[in-house]
């Protein structure tokens, strides 16, 4: 602690009056000039950053050149050892932040009074090309009643520069941060104007315009959210005064006061009568924004136009083409029909004498004995002609089936009539069906009216369903309707049902089975098996229950008994680097293995390492198992690996 000490032999540190973050502020006594001073001691260690150190000194020194009633005077910049310090005018009082907490909202008159002092001070600094960069009520001191002094000129810059060489600092106070600073740009005079606008907002309302859960969310609001209306909080604030806040805090620096002097001048008459009915501050829309609207409108109009045109074309065109086709077809069809009708009429008119008289109708003599039929025919004036016999299924032998010309026809008297006389039912010569498939034959026979067709099945070496014999035999003259046809067909050979040979049959009993069954057993393979004893059947083809012809083969696989598990050898070389804390010290290496014979519990090898070494690792890994190795140097694992059986060859 510095309390009670003298800095540079001159400033006696009396008490700490402020601090936090990068600096502490002490009340000290200048032993030479015999006055109280404030000393700001930086906590930052510049020793590693020369550039920054020089920059800090340069900026602090330039701040000493500022002399203004509303700026805290800097007397001296110095260093003692690692300690960097600024000697400043000691202002007895509190910060504007405390004042706002106690007294806000302050009246418009008082707020304007304070702001006039602040703008005057900043105007002076800007004339000297010094930008404050960190204006906030915490950096403004109140000396007596309503007299304010700004402090920490220039230091903000240096401190923000240091903060980004440090890793991972958290975002600081962002309530007065201009959008360009929030975006990461450099602070300009316009940034000071922005911060002054926020200070005015806070004076008038007692609140900060942007609040949020985190510094980041507040920083984003500076970028994206318009400054809220002061009059929304306190409606009796004149619009002209709200306009000062709005103009100072415009997002785009170009829309703010051009200079802090302009802001200062605005503040001078902001509460005057003639400005009582001022209009609210508004930023003129730039060209980009006004153009955007017609662009969107054009787009919509185009769509509206385009859609109906499109659908009209689609619905109308097909209708037109359908009507066209119909109109063209109808006349052709009508023409053909009328032509046909005219032709028919023409035929009737041209041959009128075709149905003449002096004719007899041929009588129906079917089903009558021939003699009777001849009598009838001759009775009507016709002449009996030849007789022809023909078999018939339904007209008895010797009776007339039909005449030629047939009955009902009109003929001249004396026309010769031929009689077709029935010879009775037709007898046929029975075909030879032996050797053919019964199903095929049945289809054939279905069209012939056999009295019945029977089948008798029996085992035979002929394929199933083949006809082995028939009764009556082939070439017999038969009348189907009176014949019972009997076929003997094959059921195929007598089949054997395969039994389950697995597990209980060995070579000896398989032979016995082969002899007794008439099947052939073939041993096609011998395999390892965990659960079938050596010599017994593991599997068979075909499987149990299959029907087989005598003499067929059954293939079996015999067991060779259980197999010894497969083991693969995994070999790798691992580099064990010799990296001792101190050159020359020993490193103890322990190798742990897990495989068929090792577990990881105890090291399989342990030695002292004095130089980088290649270690051979060999694992015997059983099929389905995992191996592993772990290499420790002193107490640290430097490498480990799990090796799956399938992961290598």
């Amino acid at each position, binding site marked *: 602690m510095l309390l009670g000490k003298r800095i540079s032999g001159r400033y006696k540190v009396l008490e700490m009056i402020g601090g936090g973050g990068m600096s502490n502020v002490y009340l000290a006594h200048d032993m030479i000039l015999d006055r109280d001073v404030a000393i700001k001691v930086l906590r930052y260690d510049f020793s590693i950053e020369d550039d920054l150190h020089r920059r800090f000194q340069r900026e602090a020194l330039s701040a000493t050149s500022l002399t203004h009633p509303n700026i805290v005077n800097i007397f001296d910049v110095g260093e003692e050892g690692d300690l960097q310090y600024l000697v400043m005018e000691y202002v007895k009082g509190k910060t504007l932040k405390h004042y706002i907490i106690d007294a806000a909202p302050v009246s418009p008159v008082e707020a304007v009074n304070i702001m006039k002092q602040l703008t005057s001070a900043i105007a002076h600094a800007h004339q000297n090309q010094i930008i404050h960069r960190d204006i906030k009520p915490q950096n403004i001191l109140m000396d007596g009643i309503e007299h304010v002094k700004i402090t920490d000129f220039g230091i903000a810059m240096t401190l923000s520069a240091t903060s980004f060489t440090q*890793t*991972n600092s*958290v975002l600081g106070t962002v309530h007065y941060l201009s959008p360009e600073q929030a975006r990461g740009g450099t602070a300009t005079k316009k940034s000071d104007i922005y911060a002054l606008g926020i200070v005015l907002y806070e004076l008038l309302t007692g609140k900060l315009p942007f609040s949020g859960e985190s510094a980041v969310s507040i920083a984003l609001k500076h970028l994206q959210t318009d400054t809220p209306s002061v009059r929304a909080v306190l409606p009796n604030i004149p619009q002209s005064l709200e306009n000062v806040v709005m103009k100072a805090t415009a997002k785009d620096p170009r829309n703010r006061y051009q200079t802090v002097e302009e802001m200062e001048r605005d503040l001078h008459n902001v509460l005057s009568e003639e400005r009582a009915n001022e209009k609210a501050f508004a930023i003129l829309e730039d060209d980009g924004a006004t153009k955007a609207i017609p662009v969107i409108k054009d787009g919509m109009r185009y769509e509206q136009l385009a859609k109906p045109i499109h659908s009209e074309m689609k619905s109308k065109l097909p209708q037109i083409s359908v009507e066209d086709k119909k109109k063209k077809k109808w006349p052709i069809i009508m023409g053909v029909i009328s032509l046909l009708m005219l032709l028919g009429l023409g035929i009737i008119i041209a041959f009128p004498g075709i149905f003449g008289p002096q004719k007899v109708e041929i009588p129906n003599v079917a089903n009558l004995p021939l003699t009777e039929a001849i009598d009838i025919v001759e009775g009507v004036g016709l002449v009996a002609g030849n007789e022809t016999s023909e078999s018939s299924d339904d007209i008895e032998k010797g009776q007339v089936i039909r005449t030629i010309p047939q009955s009902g026809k009109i003929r001249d008297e004396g026309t010769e009539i031929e009689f077709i006389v029935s010879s009775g039912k037709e007898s046929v010569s029975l075909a030879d069906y032996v050797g053919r498939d019964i199903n095929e034959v049945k289809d054939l026979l279905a069209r012939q009216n056999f009295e019945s067709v029977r089948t008798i099945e029996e085992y035979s070496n002929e394929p199933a369903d083949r006809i082995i014999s028939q009764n009556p035999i082939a070439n017999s003259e038969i009348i189907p309707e009176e014949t019972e046809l009997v076929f003997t067909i094959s059921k195929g050979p007598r089949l054997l049902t395969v039994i389950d040979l697995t597990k209980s049959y060995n070579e000896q009993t398989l032979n016995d089975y082969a002899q007794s069954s008439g099947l052939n057993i073939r041993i096609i393979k011998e395999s390892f098996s965990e659960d079938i004893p050596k010599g017994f059947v593991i599997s068979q083809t075909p499987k149990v229950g299959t029907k087989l012809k005598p003499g067929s083969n059954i293939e079996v696989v015999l067991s060779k008994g259980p197999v010894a598990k497969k083991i693969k050898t995994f070999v790798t070389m691992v580099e064990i680097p010799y990296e001792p804390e101190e050159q020359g010290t020993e490193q103890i290496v322990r190798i742990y293995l897990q495989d068929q014979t090792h577990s990881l519990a105890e090291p399989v090898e342990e030695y002292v390492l004095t130089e980088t070494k290649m270690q051979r690792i060999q694992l015997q890994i059983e099929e389905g198992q995992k191996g592993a190795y*772990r290499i420790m140097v002193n107490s640290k694992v430097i490498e480990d690996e799990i090796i799956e059986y399938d992961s290598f060859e």
Partner: protein
Amino acid sequence: MKFSVLSDIGQKRLVNEDRAAMYVRSDFVHLGVIADGMGGHNAGDIASEMAITQIGELFESATAKDFSSVETIKHWFKSAIQTINHAIFHYSLTHEDCQGMGTTFLAVLTKGKDTVICHIGDSRAYEWHSGRMRQLTKDHSYVNILVENGEISKEEAECHPQKNLITKSLGTEKTIEPDFISFNFPTYSHLLLCSDGLSNKLSLEDMTSILSNRATVNEKAIQLVNLANQNGGEDNISLVLITNAKEEV
């Protein structure tokens, strides 16, 4: 699984506030951790040290059940993070010099192919696979938020003055919600965890070319740190490099 852990003070800093570690359990669960400390009056190394030590103790004393699935691993991480966050936060409140201290936290836990990354701050995890690198974590940084909000471009973010402002850190707030990334760590690939002292100094191309060369894991790690130092080494440089690529020896 082979790994290399390095933490280098760099060229300019007087204190190494980074911590890096690799923990291996006897059941072949691995945990690699990076913590980049910050804040307080030279107390950044206290926060990172607390984070590294405590996560190691919690890891060693965890049950196999805690790591039985990606879900249980995340659950384990969440509760471990709350414990450590509370410890650092409480410590900073009770030790004046440690006010505001905190640390980034980046851990990767692998169990077989299941890999879970737990992440707070701007330390980064990269995956190298078949000659390509991709960044797995998304920085919890102010510039990243500006980029996501469309305020600045990615190029502007690269050289932004507030590049190092982080929006989340372990131990600076009462509660903390880490990000999780889970993925299958493919064979023949590398996983690189690093502090910004490395990622600010090396381009993705630099890292890719080093990880793609035929050096051993240790040599690659040393090459990465050396290059960061050659490029200025303004900050501490730490990394954990994990590989399951089989090295040809």
